[in-house]
Structure formats: structure tokens, C-alpha cells
């Protein structure tokens, strides 16, 4: 399981990376913006994307839309981890096809729960 962590704050990337390691996911890579994440996704063999929303060049929502629009990436599970908490934004992310939405600040338990749920649903859906 190879996971890409996208956030413009390196501290948050480290937190998520450490939490994932705790959960047994050791194969992770990082990107600091949607614009740098997309080429990585296209060239790497990632299984899962965890992304922030508010980033300087390409926002997480646009990254999500780009992933869903790409023939090769469209089925990749995407978990949004963000401080953006407006109703419209959550609805927009849901409509764009996000698989999970976590509000910062979050707990280790929430991350575990949402990741489990994402894979549960994927496995159930075949």
C-alpha cells in the first residue's frame, strides 16, 4: 500500500506520516502542493491519496477533480484532511467524489477510523 500525503505544511505531513506508520502503513511519499502531487501520482504507483484543501498553487479540491478526471487515477481512493469546514466545501468535495473528509484538528483514532472505512467500502464494492 503506497500512500501520497499532500499538505503545504511539512509539520502536518510528518504528523500524518507518523500516524500512518503507527497504523502499519510504512510506504508513504509527500508533496507540498496539488501541482507537485499530480505529476507524482501520474508517474508513481500510488494506491491512496491523503490531501489538504488550502494550498498555495493547486488546492486539494482541484487535485481531487484532476484525479477523478484522469483515466488512470480516477478510481484512487482520496481522503481529505483539512481545516476547511464550510458546508458548501464539504458538499463540493463529496460531489467531486471524495472518499472521506477529516476536519483538522483531528485525532489519531479519527484517521484510523476513516481509513478503515474507505477500504471497507472499496472492498465491499469490489
Amino acid at each position, binding site marked *: 500500500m503506497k500512500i501520497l500525503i499532500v499538505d503545504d505544511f511539512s509539520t502536518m505531513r510528518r504528523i500524518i506520516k507518523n500516524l500512518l506508520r503507527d497504523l502499519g502503513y510504512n510506504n508513504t511519499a509527500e508533496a507540498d502542493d496539488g501541482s507537485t502531487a499530480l505529476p507524482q501520482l501520474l508517474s508513481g504507483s500510488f494506491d491512496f491519496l491523503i490531501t489538504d*484543501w488550502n494550498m498555495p498553487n493547486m488546492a*486539494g479540491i482541484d487535485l481531487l477533480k484532476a484525479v477523478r478526471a484522469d483515466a488512470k487515477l480516477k478510481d484512487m481512493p482520496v481522503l481529505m484532511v483539512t*481545516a476547511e469546514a*464550510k458546508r458548501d*466545501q464539504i458538499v463540493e468535495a463529496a460531489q467531486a467524489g471524495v472518499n472521506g473528509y477529516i476536519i*483538522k484538528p483531528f485525532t489519531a483514532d479519527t484517521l484510523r477510523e476513516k481509513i478503515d472505512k474507505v477500504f471497507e467500502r472499496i472492498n465491499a464494492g469490489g
Partner: protein
Amino acid sequence: MQSPEIAQKESAMRARQLEKAKQLVIHMEAGDDEAANRLIEEMGRMHESLLFEELGKLTRDLHEALNAFRLDSRLSEITKNDIPDAKERLNYVVAMTEQSAHRTLNAVEESLPMAESIARQARELSEAWQRFRHRELSAEEFRLLAQEVGEFLERTGGEGESIRRNLSDVLMAQDFQDLTGQVIRRVIHLVQDVEENLVGLVRISGERLAVPEPKRKEPREDGDGKGSGPAVPNTSDGGDVISGQDGVDDLLSSLGF
């Protein structure tokens, strides 16, 4: 600094004044005092009228500049809403960083004594263990050692878990850097906005004639998809914000998630 318009007027006036002065000399040489006096008065009035014209223009410009300033609602909006907003945001940063520091310190204060006592007891047990290896322990002493080792292992297991939990808490407490960083960036954005508008104001008062188009910056979060960072209480973020993970989960499940 004079505008070309004023310079032109002044040179025209100088030509007229020269004309009058020549006439004045003619009148005075002819001994026509009455005509000479009238000419002197006229020359004075010419100068006054130009002065009044200039003064009138200045007053108009000032009036227009003041109106332009009043119309520039961005600056008044900044003072009325954005500055108090920014104060709340910075207060939020202070509160968040304080909370994170305490969370970290609590975890450290709880973990340090545990780590210290584990290390101390391990040293004591190690000494006894050495004596056992050198066959210096009596049967009674060995029974005691075995019991102590058992207790130590049990305690280390529990406290090791506590320390792991505390370190994990320290890890999570570092999320303040992301959250406060986003808020501080927003305040920096505002400060830049204030700066630009103040420069505009200086330009208005510096250049009487050219009134710059007032800067009107739309709030950043509106529609550019980049997001606006964490919602801060008592600020303009009040709107349609979902509170906490449970609220998000409820909303998503209402959308069929």
C-alpha cells in the same frame, strides 16, 4: 512643481503685464497720473485673479480627493471589520499555541518520571543480576530478585504504553503549526492589503490631479477554490461552518455517504 497649464497662464500674464508696464511708462512720461494709477491697480488685480483661480482649483481637487477617499470603502471596511477580525485571529493563534505547548508539556511531565524510574530500577536490577551471574546470591536473595524482575517487567509494559501514548499526544499537538500558520498567512494578506490602500491614500494626497482607482480586493476565500483556513470564532468565519468531525460525518451521511 507647476503644471504646464499654470506656466502657460503665467507667461500669458507676463506678456500682458509687460504690455501694461510699457503703457504705464508712456502715461507717466506724459504726466497722466490718473491713467497711470488706474494701470497700476489693474496690474495688481491681474495677479490676484490668477491666485484666486489657482486657490479655487486647489479647493476643488482637495474636495474631490476627500470624496474619493470616502468612496474607497475598502479602507473603512478594513478598519471596521478586518482589523478587529485580524485581532481575533491572532488571539486564536495565541490560544492555539498555548494549548499545544501545555499539551506537550503535560505529556512530557507525565512521561519523564516514568522514564526516570524505569531507568533507575533497571540499573538496580542489573546490579543484582550481575551478582546472580557471579553466583553471589543466596537462595532467599534470588527469590526476591525473581519477584522484583517480574514486577519490573509488568510495570515497564504498562508505563511503556503510557509513554508511547504521551509521545503520540506530543506528535498530535504539533498540528498547531499548520492551523495557526494558515491563520497567520491570512493576517499577512490583510497587512499587505492595508499597505496597498495606505500607499493609495498617500498617492491621493500627493498628486492633486490624479486620483487613483481605489483598490478593491475581494475576500480571498470567495470562489477561488483555495480555501480559507481554519474557522476562527468571533470573526467573519461565523457563516455556514460545520463544527467538528461529527458535524462533517452527519452532513456526509445525509448526502448518502
